[in-house]
């Protein structure tokens, strides 16, 4: 399933961000984001992960991450 994994921005430089989700970090472009973002904000990544697609409210990110953690724990992944 094309699930969106909320990723937390850990650093930013020159329109690129290092984001983290479930202990894995990756680099993604912030070029397509409409909203301003800062370190600590959550974003979801577009297909392939090269671009951040959308900023996510922290409470929505927390809810989705809790669900995804449950998915991993249950072995449904």
């Amino acid at each position, binding site marked *: *399933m094309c*699930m969106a994994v909320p990723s937390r921005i850990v650093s930013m430089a020159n329109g690129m961000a290092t984001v983290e989700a479930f202990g894995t970090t990756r680099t993604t*472009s912030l070029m397509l984001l409409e909203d301003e973002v800062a370190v600590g904000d959550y974003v979801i990544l577009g297909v392939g992960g090269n671009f951040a697609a959308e900023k996510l409210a922290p409470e929505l990110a927390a809810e989705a991450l809790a669900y995804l953690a449950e998915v*991993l724990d249950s072995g449904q992944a």
Partner: protein
Amino acid sequence: MAFPDTGISVSLEVRQGQVAHVAMRSGRLVQASRLLAGRGPNQVIALLPTLFALCGTAQALAGAAALEQAAGLSATASQRMARRYLLLVECLSEHAQSILRDWPALLDETPRLEAVKPLRPMVGAAKRALYPDGDWARPGGGRLVVDHGAVLEQSRLLADLVARLFGDLDDWDDGLDDFRRWFAQGDCVAARLLRRIEAEGLGGFGATPVHFMSATGPRDLAERLEDDQSGDYVARPDHGGIALETTPLSRHHGHPLVNALMAEHGSGLLPRFAARLVDVAAALREVEELVQDLCDEPFIPGVMDGTGVGLGMVDAARGLLAHRVELQEGVVRRYQILAPTEWNFHPDGAFAQGIRGAAAGPDLVRRARLLAAALDPCVACTIEVHDHA
């Protein structure tokens, strides 16, 4: 606890100068919706667009339709129109993002990201213009208050966008000669891509005998989902042993232009990409019609404490998306999702069939990437070749 790779990996085994075997590995979390069990309908609806944020509108609306059927509710005509409008805006946004962001890479060009940036926010703007309380996917229907000025402005923006996507192609019913002239001379990325496909003789690449899914889904869909305790069906669906295709090509194969291209190229790349463009034009036309008819409707609380089974289906950008729910005294007991990518990228589906038997060569990965892009999976798709020659 690392999150798994949720993409599709394709391995092409080459023997005696052609692709002899196609191995597909999908990391897609097709069983993840099971954990929606135990939640209330409103919790499910709140979670769906966040979990599936890339096609969140289609996912939440399929969920709303399934929950309504399970609870014995029915959305009014006004709600159905407003939902259809939102779905079409998402469909246009998804196609346009793909064309402007991903198609340039197929031409070894750099995408113009400033053109892509306004696309995704259009979907949120459409929701705000119809449902000021944000309850656009509420089962039974949210409080619908149409901001006619905003909606009209949005349909103008969408028309501008489509005009930019297609350059001077404005009449889709003029037939094959005009379409050929357009892509032979046009300067937009879509025309350049089709021109290159034709110039390289790839118009019919990937053509196979077609097994199109009907607009209402396979006849046995409800029954197969009900029986699917193992989850094998939602991972690798079939109908009578055949992995059907649900794509813009299956949606528009009757369109005169697509039909004429199929007469020359079967289900090859040229008709497939053309069907994507026809899908964009058709969605815009429908948006422009709907804009005239959207109207307000107060929120009437629907009772969701029933027991029943519901199947909700929506035509998403990539094909038919189905949600099935079992509701017991207002609590979700079982939740299943079947997405179009599982049909189209089935180990025996349109992609695998299309690439099997392809001639080996240095550009095999590129041809496979073109076919994957034409079929448009909703996750990353990596392709590798193992030559056993």
